[in-house]
């Protein structure tokens, strides 16, 4: 690599500039493809925005209008009237932060061990951990509920957070990341007398930053949108997370859909902002991290 760079450096700057120009030209195609794709991807979401500003009759109408006759900004105000939005928002934030931190801690540690340490029963244990992704999630509901009830944690933050602290998916994700890393750094650190924890903490963990950010994003989203568990273990509206609160707006016979849409957009917004910030800092900023 270094040789190649050296070769590139001085004498061929002209070539490089030419290559850059060529690249710039073909960006048109890239923009066409990406733009068309983005439109398809964003369309349902944009429509959700439109519906959140419509009347219920307009949403229920079979000939959809692409823009409401009179934008109903009141639908957004209605969300705050019908839900203890801020309390639920706070609960969501607390639950999500706790879970993301726990998952990063537990999953990176376990993922590292599964990828780069040898111990008896490793394949069995890994298979057991992975197997929990392979059964319908409803299988866990009753048992988990009974455990949490026995611990006296119903209606508590602990009960809301608990089973979600442990993620098989996250472990698998981190294991994959650690599997792909070069052996040399690890070996060098070991020869310097670092113990396995120090190797993990000082050498490998920084290398895994891009994947840890992926884990952070996915666990945030999962926790933020989780529905059934918080609905089942919580009683008081003020102590529910937002995802559960939103769901209570949907009724069996008469639902005010625009308010549901507005509420779901309000709930989605913070995650979207988080993503924008994260992708600036993490995905775009990766090149300068300890990766190379």
């Amino acid at each position, binding site marked *: 690599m270094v040789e190649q760079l050296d070769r590139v450096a001085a004498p061929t700057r002209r070539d490089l500039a030419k290559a850059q120009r060529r690249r710039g030209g073909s*960006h048109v195609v890239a923009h066409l493809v*990406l733009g068309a794709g983005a439109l398809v*991807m964003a369309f349902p979401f944009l429509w*959700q925005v439109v519906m959140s500003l419509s009347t219920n009759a307009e949403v229920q109408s079979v000939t959809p209008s692409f823009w409401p006759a009179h934008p109903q900004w009141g639908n957004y105000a209605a969300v705050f009237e019908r839900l203890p939005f801020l309390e639920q928002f706070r609960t969501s934030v607390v639950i999500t932060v706790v879970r993301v931190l726990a998952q990063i801690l537990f999953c990176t540690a376990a993922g590292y061990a599964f990828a780069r340490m040898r111990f*008896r029963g490793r394949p069995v244990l890994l298979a057991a951990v992975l197997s929990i992704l392979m059964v319908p999630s409803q299988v866990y509901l009753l048992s988990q509920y009974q455990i949490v009830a026995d611990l006296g944690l119903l209606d508590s933050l602990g009960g809301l957070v608990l089973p979600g602290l*442990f993620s098989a998916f996250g472990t698998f994700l981190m294991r994959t990341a650690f599997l792909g890393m070069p052996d040399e750094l690890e070996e060098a650190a070991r020869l310097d007398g670092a113990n*396995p*924890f120090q190797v993990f903490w000082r050498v490998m963990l920084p290398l895994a930053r891009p994947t840890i950010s992926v884990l952070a*994003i996915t666990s945030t989203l999962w926790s933020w949108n989780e529905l059934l568990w918080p609905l089942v273990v919580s009683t008081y509206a003020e102590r529910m997370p937002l995802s559960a609160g939103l769901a209570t707006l949907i009724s069996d016979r008469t639902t005010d859909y625009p308010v549901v849409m507005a509420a779901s957009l309000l709930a989605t917004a913070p995650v979207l902002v988080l993503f924008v910030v994260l992708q600036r800092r993490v995905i775009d900023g990766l090149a300068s991290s300890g990766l190379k």
Partner: protein
Amino acid sequence: MSEALPARGAGREPARGRRVRRDGAWPWLFVAPLTLGVAVFYLWPIAQTAWYSLTTFGVFGGTTFTGLGNYAEILGDPTLYRSLVNTLLYTAIVLLNIPIAVCLASLLNLPGLRFAAFYRVLYFLPYVAMPTAVAMVWRIIFNGDFGVLNWALGLVGIEGPYWISTPWASIVAVAVVGLWSSLGFSLIVLSAGLKNVPPELYEAAQLDGASRSRQFRSITVPLLAPSTSFLAVVTVIAGFQLFDLLYAVLGTTNPALPKSLSLVYYFYRAGFVDNDKGVAAATAMVILVLVGLATAVQFRLQRRWVRG
């Protein structure tokens, strides 16, 4: 469980035995927090389910041992196989998100591409959107009489079907939504993976005169192999869990429903509609075995593909 493990580890060759000793108790310290939580909150319920699958289970508890009767019942039911085929069809279509995401990710990763961050946010939107809202919007798009999709198809002279109430079409429609909503996740994983590819590789290749598509084939695709095979495994596992989306998009009184069930929907019907928890537990075990096999096969293939 601790009793079962030594038996499996007993036959190891000495060379590996040395490495076991070198890491000592460390691996256990690393995996213990996760494993304990997983054992209590996930493996224990699975174990209970395995037991329930051999019993007749009252709606609110109370079990009677009935042996393999539940398994005989579901394995003799044609609907189970139809559900399996539907699930496989869904999974196959959603898997297409990986090649699409590889192409998009490599485009997004073009050096000097403007608006890349903006595109990324747009592609990420479906992944953050609330599932209930998403299902509602797609139902409207797929509407046979008034939907945007059939209106657009009509412009090019195609008469679209009633997407969500025609067997097969319903699975395709739901799979499109599945593909749409998983693309964002694949893109993030691949973007993280692409960061592992040094840009100098491309620059060198370019100076060597390699075409864009040649670079894509000989640099991007191989170097993304770990990420793509991870995505493949995850997509298959998730594909087999198809339920929420199907339930939300198709609704509960859809005439196409009996022919559009997925495996987990079959499980759900047994457990939460027919209130036959024993049969549901047996179905869950069958699903576990099927996904376990599929994953094992993938691991085998992957070892070849990632190394080769």
